[in-house]
């Protein structure tokens, strides 16, 4: 800091930074991207290791024997589900009671803001059934949760069967120190949301639910089980939760450790682990795995029923059984033993899971990238904004090289400066508010006026408002009295650049992936845009790099990563449904990505759009 308090050296440093500003920015951008791509390279990452002592060193035996019986129960459940045309509440209650659990039910209902076309639901009514295995000689202060969603159709019956089988087996064991809650939730995430809100007696999303009767104290960990076939080839671990929250890494370590011990193939993001990290294909495999995690995390939506637990500081993950056409098959007994082992170790916990990382990316199940390693990639991108801001600040501070009337000129500039900054700021944020509120408000009107369904109406209104926002410069200029000055756009750009830096910084702290993806597209925009660049070309680039187009590319990229490429037509439809899902996630579960984009990121981008068309 002595460097800065010496005016001479400060001047030298600043002149260096302003002179070489553009090259430094380019280098930083390249370095940021390169750093990020390097994260997936195995020698640069850490091996996962169990940090929690209570789960690491202690030995447990897995003896669950009753896989076949669990499958029979699953088939019985399926038959009763078909008969009841939904959740077979009475049968489940009776079955759980017969296994010696304390059984309770919870009814809930929710009217969606607009119909969900993916899952075909609008007015949702359902019942959750849960049974509590009371730990002997424990005072009901701690609990673990095992849940299996009751989904319509033929899927997930085996998961419920295995859940009931495990309940029966666990009930006969003496070693439990924590209550275990076996939950079968209807309407997947909506039911889970209702149950969690009921359990914690909060109401964040305006859902109707009946209060819970039985509780097990504070929940320490939860697993959600999805299993749709009698034999499986691999188990997939899903970690990404609401708003990009992740469970403690020890939960993933635990899963991996038991998969290794029992000999079950395990995957993350559906990708098996490979040993050839030094080959190009091995590297690109781990890049794919990591990018999938980044995309999923950035979406901010819960990727399994576990996702909603994380808000309550409950470590949770989903485990999905996958039956692909591999040779190696695993039966349900083995999966039961896997879960038994995991629950026994979780039961041993003496404290909440907190020893390991909460912020990480996983290029494979055995390797992880911690926050200390991935943050520099974002930092390198964010520093570009600060450098540009410094450059602008210096340009504003040094008076233009006019000697006589410089002083009077400056005074004239500064007074419209406030208005010329404030007007676009206010207008762009009003557009953002419109983008946030109008789609839901106007859906009925739109349905009456145009031949579209409610969901289409919402999505098309959103796109319409978004596009209408592009007329912002026109509106601003109408409001502004005089001509925009040279100083004016610099002040506006300075404000916009700093605004974007703060916005991205905060986003990256909470949800690194979202922050990084936004930075990747918005930082170049913020860096190069001035009123003096060629209009048409720049406008095109600006639109390409706007949040909506980023989302569109992300949809295609995500499909590509999953090795399910789509045509443009399908991709567009997918894009529309992703928008509607995003809006629904916000209203149903409190996902923050939609309001973040609509209320903050989009207005910020509009400011740059405004600068481009500065007169």
């Amino acid at each position: 800091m002595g460097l800065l308090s010496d005016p001479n050296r400060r001047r030298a440093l600043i002149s260096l930074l302003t002179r070489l500003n553009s090259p430094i920015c380019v280098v930083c951008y390249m370095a940021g991207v390169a750093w990020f791509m390097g994260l997936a390279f195995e020698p640069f990452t850490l091996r996962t290791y169990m940090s929690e002592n209570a789960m690491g060193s202690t030995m447990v035996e897995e003896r669950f024997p009753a896989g076949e019986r669990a499958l029979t129960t699953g088939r019985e459940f399926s038959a009763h589900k078909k008969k009841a045309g939904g959740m077979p509440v009475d049968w489940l209650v009776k079955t759980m009671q017969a296994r010696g659990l304390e059984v309770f039910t919870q009814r809930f209902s929710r009217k969606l803001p607009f119909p969900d076309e993916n899952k075909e639901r609008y007015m949702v009514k359902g019942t959750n059934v849960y049974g509590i295995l009371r730990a002997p000689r424990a005072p009901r202060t701690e609990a673990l949760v095992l849940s299996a969603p009751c989904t319509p159709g033929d899927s997930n019956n085996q998961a419920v069967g295995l859940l009931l089988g495990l309940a029966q087996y666990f009930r006969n064991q003496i070693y439990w120190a924590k209550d275990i809650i076996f939950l079968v939730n209807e309407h997947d995430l909506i039911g889970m949301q209702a149950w969690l809100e009921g359990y914690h007696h909060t109401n964040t999303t305006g859902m109707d639910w009946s209060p819970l009767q039985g509780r097990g104290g504070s929940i320490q960990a939860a697993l959600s089980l999805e299993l749709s076939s009698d034999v499986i080839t691999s188990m997939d671990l899903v970690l990404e939760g609401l708003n990009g929250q992740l469970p403690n890494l020890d939960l993933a370590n635990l899963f991996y450790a038991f998969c290794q011990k029992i000999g079950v193939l395990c995957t993350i993001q559906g990708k098996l682990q490979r040993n050839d990290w030094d080959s190009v294909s091995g590297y690109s495999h781990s890049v794919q795995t990591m990018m999938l995690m980044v995309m999923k995390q950035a979406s901010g939506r819960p990727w399994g029923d576990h996702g909603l637990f994380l808000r309550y500081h409950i470590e949770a993950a989903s485990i999905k059984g996958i039956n692909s056409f591999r040779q190696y098959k695993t039966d349900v007994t083995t999966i039961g033993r896997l879960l038994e082992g995991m629950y026994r170790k979780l039961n041993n916990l003496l404290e909440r899971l907190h020893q390991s990382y909460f912020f990480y990316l996983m290029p494979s199940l055995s390797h992880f990238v911690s926050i200390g390693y991935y943050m520099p990639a974002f930092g390198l991108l964010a520093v570009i904004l600060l450098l540009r801001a410094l450059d602008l600040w210096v340009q504003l501070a040094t008076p233009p090289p006019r000697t006589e009337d410089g002083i009077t000129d400056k005074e004239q500039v500064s007074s419209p400066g406030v208005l010329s900054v404030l007007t676009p700021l206010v207008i762009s944020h009003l557009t953002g508010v419109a983008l946030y509120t109008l789609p839901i408000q106007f859906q009925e009107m739109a349905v009456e006026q145009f031949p579209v369904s409610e969901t289409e109406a919402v999505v098309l209104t959103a796109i319409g408002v978004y596009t209408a926002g592009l007329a912002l410069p026109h509106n601003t200029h109408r409001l502004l009295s005089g001509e925009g000055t040279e100083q004016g756009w610099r002040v506006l750009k300075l404000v916009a650049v700093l605004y974007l830096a703060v916005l991205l910084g905060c986003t990256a702290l909470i949800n690194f992936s979202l922050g990084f993806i936004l930075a990747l597209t918005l930082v170049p925009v913020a860096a190069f845009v001035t009123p003096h660049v060629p209009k048409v070309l720049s406008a095109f680039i600006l639109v390409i790099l706007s949040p909506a187009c980023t989302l569109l590319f992300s949809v295609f990229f995500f499909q590509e990563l999953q090795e399910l490429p789509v045509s443009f037509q399908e991709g567009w439809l997918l894009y529309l449904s992703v928008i509607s899902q995003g809006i629904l996630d916000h209203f149903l579960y409190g996902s923050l990505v939609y309001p973040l984009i609509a209320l903050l990121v989009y207005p910020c981008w509009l400011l740059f759009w405004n600068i481009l068309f500065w007169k």
Partner: protein
Amino acid sequence: FDTSAPETVDPSSVPQPKDDFQEELVIRPLHSGDIYASFQFRTVWETDFMRGNKVSHYRLFPKSLGQVISKFSVRELHISFTQGYWRTMQWGQPFQPSPPGAELWVWFQDSAECKVYAAGCVDGTWKELTNVLSGIFCASLNFIDSTNTVQPSASFKPLGIGNETDHRFLRYATLPREIVCTENLTPWKKLLPCGSKAGLAVLLKSEKLFHSSFHSQAVHIRPVCQDWQCKTTSWELRQTLNVVFDLHNSAQGKREWSLFKMFSRTLTEACPLASSSKIYIDITDNPQGEQFEVSPATPLLSQAVVLGDRRTFSVYDLTQQITFGTVRSLNLLIRWKSSEGDMLRPLLHAERYVAGYGLQTGEIHTLMYNNHPYRSFPVLLLDSVPWYLRLYIHTLTVTSKGKDNKPSYIHYQPSKDRLRPHLLEMLVQLPPNSVTEVTVQFERALLKWTEYTPDPNHGFYVGSSVISSLVPSIVAMDTNSTRERPLFSSFFPCKEESSYFVRVYTEPLLVNLPTPDFSMPYNVICLTCTVVAVGYGSLYNLLTRSFQIEEPSPGLAKRIANIIRKMRGVPPL
């Protein structure tokens, strides 16, 4: 019914002091298929610890406790150690309720030396007493201090004789975290006259007692009347042990219980020092033997009014040789014929939980169920909350059936940080067939770093709420105290015929406080110091000061020259 037991006291012993020992085991088959066994050992001694005369000759009464009574002027002492939570919805009411963990409440004597500075004097005695008891029972009772001790004004009245009810002489504390195990059972067994050598106490084997769903052991000391005229008082020591064996864990799902299966022992004799030694089996739900069968059968039946209900018991008198039959050992067997287990609807039932998420605020919900179809009754709710949960007492709401239910009596003592807990006592009328919800919001305090428990911790415990009530009984209570009654039915004194006393404990709470990550204090300290020293200091410097290049101050000659030049009107050098 009572076949008066033959006097087993050695005739050669001196007539003074007069003491008496009784032992008793009640077995109650529960609806759920579990089985509840409740032991009671009662020693009554007609003596006076208080009147200055030093009692030195002990026979049946344990000396360690006698000395505690006389040294600390204890008038009543109740201590319980419980592992597990009593499941009211499945098991009904217990004979002696107790909260999970350790509970201790003591009434002190209004002694002469404590007259003036009662509170301070009692506090000192209480501190010493907890330390002594901690040694006697091998428990962490020494963790009882002013931050978890309260003086309830109404919930805990003396159970023995005595008219002093000034709550300055009462101390109540719970340790919800206390773990009860063999080390607590052994000193408890040593207080028995026969130890675990003979009588019912041979059944108390820790490997079986701690292989159960619920385990609770307690010691109650109180002064009682010698006879119905109450001219002389004697001291009563009751040692109780309650245990519930689980159908699924202990019996492998078979609905068949025997003494051997429960305790891995059978009975061969009564304690020779006991004046009465009996086993009661609750057969009320089974008058014709359609639910379960008991073998060997006994002709002796007894009726007693317990917890507002008239129950029928089969009685096995261990002082009679015939009870043991030809094999000279008694192994009671209970075999179910039907298998159905429904949830019970006990008249009074309560539960408690913490609502909300995040580490800043929260809300404690206490639910009290009155399942009586048409009678409302008042309950006393006692809540003792540690100081680090800062209760917002203005948010206290009591609602029944969606309507505000104003408590007729509220005693609230706010907490003092690091000194004393919150104490909240309320008298609430529970309407018939209703759920009453008491909610109060709290804020989690940020502790000093030494105040956190050592690293492995589940969170911070908040002790159970206590709900005490006179519940309307189904049958008229037996208030005739002269008649001989089984021990388990005579613990809480009842004055009224139409209601009986019930105490219900809610589950303890586990609350997470905002905890810094102690695993890297060094990193945190380094980072903080660096940020403060380098970052903040220099940034502040840069922001508040403006820097300019200072000309070196001119020499004296140059200054004089400049003055001259100025006078001449020439620009300075």
